[in-house]
């Protein structure tokens, strides 16, 4: 699937999605539900600010010493009998995974939810070599069934669909009875019976990785459905794919971050399952794969690590920022045209995939700071969005010429009070004939975009400074 979804302009994608009433209803109600849940869950921890500081420290420490921990991790994975592959690019990652699958002469691949495999278009790469790939996370499975609809959220990929739409997909694709219930429990039970058979026949299991644990060479998977447990135990070959920054030093730090992850993501103390897996099956184990491969992906992360956007790599993919974003609330995930949506997507996507296709994303924010406030590991998201804008304007020179001129005018006018005074008085005279009831409904020039939506106040005849002058002259206070 790669990072980018389509070739449409940002504005067109937004306009299309603003028309999608079902999507908007589903997203708004999910946000409203998650809001209270998250606050309650983090409140239970006591001093949440202290936890956030601790979480930030852990992530920063790992990023500052990433070379050390990557080395430790790979050594320990190999000690446990696993194989490690460092992939610079999506192509390298896919080629390696293809070769592992082909060596097994496997054609049936099971997957549990993983954004990084979306990032590298792994499913397509596997289908190219004749494999059937089955997504086992319910949300991902629904999207796969629905003619490969795209994820609109990094944690809840099908959040843009309500249960009635999901039922429709099941009726159309799985023969679910048309008069069957649209109750979430019934729908889940139905899918469960279908997926069970596929689990038993799969030859290769592929997962993402929430956190890799450097000192034990383990990977961990945080799920609610238990699907990752089956994906990692039934198939004989297991492959885990991770972004190179997703490491913790030891189980101790993992415990802290998982605590913060599940609370921030879904308002739960803990998800139903947290799997920690170390290497392939050992002699004394009752189950587990015979082969274990860990693919560690760079894909631009080294460059981010070395630059001014480094802190975005602290991300633990909880989507708390997405769930509080008032822009995401209205435009939904697909408008971002990227597998990474919401504030984290608006920061990360241009870094991974460039400004050519994504230079509008940093502007899709009112800089309200809700994201920064919600982030459990204290990524200053709104500041990074601002940083992107600065890079786009000052380093890349990609801002519209008209905007540049306006800002030049602003800089001059706002640095000189005499000029400002005269200018606003001229504006008052110009605007006066356009107004009615002290408001302007049809602005011209730079005001037009404002008055397309709302009325604009006219400049007051007497400015505050003039009132103040008069008052002082009169000997008022």
């Amino acid at each position, binding site marked *: 699937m790669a990072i980018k979804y389509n070739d449409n302009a940002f504005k067109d994608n*937004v306009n299309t999605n*603003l028309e999608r009433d079902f999507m908007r209803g589903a997203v708004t109600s999910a946000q*409203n539900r998650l*809001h209270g849940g998250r606050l309650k869950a983090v409140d239970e921890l006591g001093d949440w600010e202290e936890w956030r500081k601790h979480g930030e420290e852990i992530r920063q420490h790992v990023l500052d010493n990433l070379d050390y921990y990557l080395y430790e991790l790979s050594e320990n994975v190999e000690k446990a009998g696993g194989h490690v592959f460092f992939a610079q690019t999506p192509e390298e990652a896919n080629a390696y995974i293809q070769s592992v699958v082909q060596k097994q002469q496997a054609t049936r691949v099971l997957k549990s939810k993983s954004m990084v495999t979306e990032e590298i278009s792994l499913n397509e790469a596997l289908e190219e070599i004749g494999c059937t790939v089955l997504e086992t996370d319910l949300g991902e499975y629904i999207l796969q069934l629905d003619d490969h609809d795209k994820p609109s959220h990094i944690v809840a990929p099908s959040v843009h669909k309500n249960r009635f739409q999901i039922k429709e997909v099941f009726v159309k694709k799985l023969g679910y009875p048309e008069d069957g219930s649209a109750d979430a429990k019934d729908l889940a039970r139905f899918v469960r019976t279908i997926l069970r058979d596929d689990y038993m026949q799969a030859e290769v299991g592929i997962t993402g990785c929430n956190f890799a644990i450097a000192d034990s060479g383990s990977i961990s998977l945080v799920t609610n459905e238990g699907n990752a447990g089956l994906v990692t135990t039934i198939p004989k070959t297991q492959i885990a794919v991770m972004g190179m920054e997703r490491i913790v030093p030891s189980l101790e730090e993992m415990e802290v971050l998982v605590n913060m992850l599940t609370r921030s993501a879904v308002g739960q103390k803990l998800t139903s399952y947290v799997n920690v897996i170390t290497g392939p099956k050992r002699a004394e184990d009752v189950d587990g794969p015979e082969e274990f491969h860990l693919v560690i992906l760079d894909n631009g992360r080294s460059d981010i690590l070395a630059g001014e956007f480094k802190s975005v790599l602290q991300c633990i993919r909880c989507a708390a920022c997405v769930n*509080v974003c*008032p*822009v995401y*609330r*209205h*435009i939904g995930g697909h408008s971002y045209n990227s597998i990474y949506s919401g504030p984290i997507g608006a920061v990360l996507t241009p870094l991974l995939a460039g400004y050519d296709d994504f230079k509008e994303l940093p*502007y*899709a*924010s*009112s*800089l*309200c*700071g*809700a994201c*920064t*406030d919600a982030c459990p590991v204290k990524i200053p998201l709104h500041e990074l969005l*601002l940083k*992107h*804008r*600065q890079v*786009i*304007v*000052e380093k890349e020179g990609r*801002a519209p010429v008209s*905007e540049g001129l306006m800002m*030049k005018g*602003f*800089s*001059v006018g*706002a*640095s*000189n*009070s005499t000029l*400002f005074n005269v200018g*606003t008085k001229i504006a008052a005279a110009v605007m006066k004939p356009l107004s009615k009831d002290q*408001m302007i*409904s049809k602005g011209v020039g*730079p005001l037009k*975009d*404002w008055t*397309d*939506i*709302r*009325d*604009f*106040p*006219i*400049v*007051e005849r*007497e*400015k*505050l*400074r003039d*009132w*103040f002058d008069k008052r002082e002259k009169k000997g008022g*206070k």
Partner: protein
Amino acid sequence: MKVSLFATCLVDTFQTNVGKATVELLERLGCEIEFPRSQVCCGQPAYNSGYVEKAKEPMRKMIDTFLDAEVIVTPSGSCATMFKEYPHVFKDDPAYAEKAQIVADKTYELTDFIVNVLKVEDVGATFNHKITYHPSCHMTRLLGVKDAPFTLLNNVKGLEFIPLPYSYNCCGFGGTFSVKMGNISEQMVDEKVDSAIETEAEYLVGADGGCLMNIGGRMHRRGEKIKTIHIAEILNQQA
């Protein structure tokens, strides 16, 4: 106490009533008000659009203007936040780094100043109306002023307060965002207006001119009965 009023360009130009109320209110509370004439704008419109270098000129002007003030008070959470950002903006500028810090350290948003510096919780105002309150984003999240407006409103006689549903969501202003991403901003401000109407309040109160101009402008366009009002105007109302 001698207060240097940082009026903000919006109040100086479009919302003079807010400025007058701020002056009268602070005088009633025993302050002496000065209006430094060379002030214009904090630079936020350019800064938040990515034109950091172009924003620096107006910012330097403001730093020079307010450097010698005893305290700086502004009826805007967002513009106060911008002043607080100055040390960060000028951290590598030897001529202004220290001055920026001095200005930032003595800058207060109006309600924060009244409650936490003047130590006044009841300004003796009367306002016989039903109101709801929109906590603006920069003021609550970035500046960290959350409780002061409620402390003051709670003590206004005759005032009936109804909480605003989803009050934590941005109103869709965001400076240039409101015009650059007009179609998204429209959805956000509409939800804010709908929430305000749901409270059946007569006024939506705020402490930031930008947000009020956005919400009020949309209310006016839609022909709604509910109006916006700045908190300074309420606190300055006497029986």
